């Protein structure tokens, strides 16, 4: 491959509510068996990018645990590899990453010491499959300075979460608005960029000199009339999980056969850290309908229209509906859970009831775990 990869995984979002208390969004468990960052990492590996930097900042414990070995994504090679960069104090700088551009700038040696001509920048909070080579080919064909991967935002009320772009007939971006309150357009940036490595170094150094730190505002928007910034349109499934509602919806999307086939049954596959858990076990009273169940789970009760992550224990006579139960949750007998996201490592007491009335309820319950 002619590119190196950078994954921005430092972010947090208050719209994740309690879910981001203990982890960066990139470490959010997704679709039963995965973590959000697996998608960007697997796309990089599957696009034959051999050298990837993951930039972390916000509560990276969970993320670091997940990234403890690069072998799961096949990055543990003699050439290339996976590098995790957290902010450090240096002779010249003692600040945190002050923005996306600054995060990359603070690790500019990584860019300078590479020899690959291009850089693919992606974020760790999006669920999609993509062959970045296709974007790179487009980038080269358009003789672009920066290529931004764009998609259509189906829900106009969601547009305000994203950068909204307008392209001319050639695909060049002529307008770019970051998180507009209202917009008449619905083409949005996916936060995936391709840029020539030397060009990126130059842009970052200039931004740093001017005290500018944000990749979108200070580079894409500021330079859009000066540099050839192109949009690459994709219609494939793409979802950003950085609000509770989007996170819930994305997990529920995997109950659809087309989405499951697209992500689970096509090569090259999405890789993740292997956990060595036994198969899921269904005891005699278990009733499971239209749900995803992950390994290590033991089910005694009723589960409907839900996504169960790994090592979930569902007690007798429980009813779980329209809910997302994260890893390693123990649910005591006779408990009812509806329209909830249950935080990982929770222990839910027997005979309790949690229902999201208007919207999704997030359940964080740290009780003593009963002896099984």
């Amino acid at each position: 491959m002619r590119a190196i990869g950078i994954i921005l995984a430092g972010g947090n979002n208050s719209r994740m509510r309690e879910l981001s208390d203990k982890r960066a969004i990139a470490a959010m468990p997704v679709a039963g068996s995965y973590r959000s960052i697996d998608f960007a990492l697997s796309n990089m590996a599957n696009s034959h990018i051999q050298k990837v930097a993951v930039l972390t900042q916000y509560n990276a414990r969970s993320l670091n645990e997940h990234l403890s070995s690069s072998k799961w994504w096949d990055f543990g090679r003699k050439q290339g590899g996976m590098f995790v960069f957290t902010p450090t104090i240096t002779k010249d700088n003692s600040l945190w990453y002050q923005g996306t551009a600054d995060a990359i700038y603070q690790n500019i040696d990584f860019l300078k010491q590479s020899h690959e001509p291009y850089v693919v920048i992606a974020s760790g909070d999006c669920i999609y499959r993509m062959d970045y080579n296709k974007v790179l080919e487009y980038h080269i064909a358009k003789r672009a300075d920066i290529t931004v991967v764009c998609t259509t935002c189906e829900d106009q009320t969601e547009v305000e979460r994203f950068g909204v772009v307008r392209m001319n007939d050639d695909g060049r971006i002529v307008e770019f608005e970051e998180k507009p309150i209202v917009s008449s357009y619905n083409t949005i940036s996916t936060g995936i960029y391709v840029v020539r490595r030397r060009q990126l170094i130059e842009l970052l150094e200039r931004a740093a000199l001017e005290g500018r730190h944000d990749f979108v505002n200070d580079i894409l928007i500021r330079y859009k009339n000066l540099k050839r910034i192109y949009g690459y349109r994709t219609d494939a499934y793409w979802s950003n999980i950085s609000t509770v509602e989007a996170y819930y919806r994305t997990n529920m999307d995997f109950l659809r056969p087309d989405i499951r086939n697209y992500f689970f049954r096509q090569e090259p596959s999405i890789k993740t850290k292997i956990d060595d858990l036994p198969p899921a076990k269904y005891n005699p009273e278990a009733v499971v309908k239209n749900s995803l169940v992950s390994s290590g789970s033991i089910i005694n009760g009723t589960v409907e229209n839900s996504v169960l992550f790994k090592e979930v224990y569902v007690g007798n006579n429980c009813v779980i509906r329209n809910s997302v139960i994260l890893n390693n949750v123990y649910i005591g007998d006779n408990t009812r859970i509806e329209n909830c996201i249950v935080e990982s490592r929770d222990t839910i007491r027997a005979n309790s009831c949690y229902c999201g009335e208007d919207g999704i309820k997030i359940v964080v319950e740290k009780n003593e775990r009963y002896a099984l």
Partner: protein
Amino acid sequence: MMKKEMIAMLLAGGQGSRLGVLTQKVAKPAVAFGGKYRIIDFPLSNCINSGIDTVGVLTQYQPLRLNTHIGIGIPWDLDRNEGGVTVLPPYEKSTNSEWYTGTANAIFQNLDYMQQYNPDYVLILSGDHIYKMDYEVMLNYHKANKADVTIACMPVPIEEASRFGIMVTDETGRVAEFEEKPEKPSSNLASMGIYIFSWPVLKEALIALKDQSNCDFGKHILPYCKDKGQRLFAYEYNGYWKDVGTLGSYWEANMELIDIIPEFNLYEEFWKIYTKGDIIPPQYIAGDAVTDQCLIGEGAEIYGEVHHSVIGPNVVIGRGTVVRDSIIMRNSQIGEDTVLDKAIVAEDVVIGNKVTLGFGEEAANVLKPAVYAFGLATVGERSVIPDNVQIGRNTAISGVTTAEDYPGGILESGQVIKAKDGEQA
């Protein structure tokens, strides 16, 4: 090379012919077990959990699946700078070249492998048992007794004792006598085929008996050691241990895993069993599916009914299909409105719609009545079964079968079909 206190030699070369079509294309240790694992995962996990990081795996019969599975030992943490797992196939020598002709002969042919670690003890294991055992406890027993050989044994019901190698011990646990499959057993301590040898004793015995044909531990090495007056001890083990050498015991051991609290519990944090987990996605249970007492592996999609069964990874079970008391191994696809009753379906099998697998009364198998018994219908890997056929009990099917192979759409109980293999996908 760094000295290792104890290394393990795992005998994984046997065909396991009593598993019939299940081992037609793979060695027994590579046969899938428990909805996720392969049989060899149990001794390999026991090794690493017991602190043994040097394991030689002796292969001979159909080793491809086994080699792919073991690789460099990553899943068991056996990828080591020194030691780790080494696959040891038979090899050509400058003087006499031969296959492994017996369990002890196989170990003898790998003396150099063992010698390079200069171990104090060698643990001999076989790759066809389901159990969790701390070999370190057994080693401590070996040391405390100043034993030359320690043989792991377990008490079996006396009426079954005549199927095993039986140890007669004195009150200290020292072996006074063996009886190989005795008609009238004088003890119920059965050998589990797990031995710890002090290295000099093993080496001496292997060299002394190197010209013994089909040299075997039970038949030759142990009697030789005993006749020399060496200290042989029986180490009594009382945990779960299952020989899965026959279709009946293989089926039973799988079914025991789905008890509400199974005697052999895979869900304990302590003493995990590791395997090569290459299938990642969660399983999907559809809106009209039934999952009633079963184990289901990663990536499976269940649209039909599953009762009291073990379903492997990536298996698809179609709408209207009912699976009962059966084992289905990874990547197999079962059509719609099909019935499986007491069936064992190996990997990558395709079964059509409206098929009945396992119906009617039992009848003795015409080809191998002792192998295809227990009322099971067994389907070998990469087999194909067409739509609308009915298959009886104590049957075996392998290869790509078509409607012509089933006269009148029926395969009677006790019959066998061996069809040609299809193109491998």
